[in-house]
């Protein structure tokens, strides 16, 4: 295990490989959290427009991203 890399050590030296991988993980997590919340909002009867307003994006972009995923209670906006 002598070659093993300590994550804490690498992070403390500001290793870009660690930093970029951490940002990638954060981005993936945000995508998944957003999907969870959008799904919950649709199940609660929110319109795409209201979801888009809450996310700070256009209705078209949120609709394009999620509407084809066959949500429960899907309806046209």
């Amino acid at each position, binding site marked *: 295990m002598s*070659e*093993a890399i300590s994550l804490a050590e690498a992070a403390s030296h500001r290793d870009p490989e660690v930093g970029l991988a951490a*940002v990638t*993980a954060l981005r*993936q*997590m945000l995508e*998944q*959290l957003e999907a969870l919340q959008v*799904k919950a909002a649709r199940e609660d009867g929110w319109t795409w427009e209201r979801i888009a307003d809450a996310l700070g994006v256009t209705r078209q972009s949120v609709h394009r991203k999620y509407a084809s995923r066959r*949500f429960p209670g899907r309806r046209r906006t």
Partner: protein
Amino acid sequence: MTRRAGPGRDPIRSRLLAAAGAEADRARHGYVGCEHLLLALLTDKDPAAREILASNSISLPAARAAVADVISSGRGDGPPWNAADLLATLGVDLPAIQRQMRADYGPHAIDELYRSPVGRRLPWGPLCGPQMAPGLKKALFGNEGRDSFPTSAHALLSLTDADSAGLAAVLASLGSSPELVGLAVKERLRQAG
């Protein structure tokens, strides 16, 4: 029309995918790769691959230790760190977020996200578990003309053809190589007729 192979049509593939994922989870690795597929073959109920590997002096405990060493040293097919550890470097407590999501949306909310309509096109990210490495996909789905692995030995042969640097490093640390294992599988299959 060529029928596309898939895990749902092949019990061995389904078992191996599940077991490889479980091995990655167990070791808290950030991805599922060919290295984990080797471990899955060593735990599968079909003994064919396990026997071939044993004849090459490769056991489950030794292979697990080798996989852990290869991945932690950055020689695996994926990143050496898992999502929870990476996010901790940013001050983000992933297990706490996962606990909160389960509390808010049900105990299976996160596990089902990837399989749900909303998660269908999402990457296999931190909330849902380890990401599957391209090498593992190639090993499992590379032979589209064949629907199934008749035995785990056939799956092992496919794995040795996957061109995985991580697997090669694991086998090298166990005194073997994909080529040697592949030859052993072919010999066993030839003997079996």
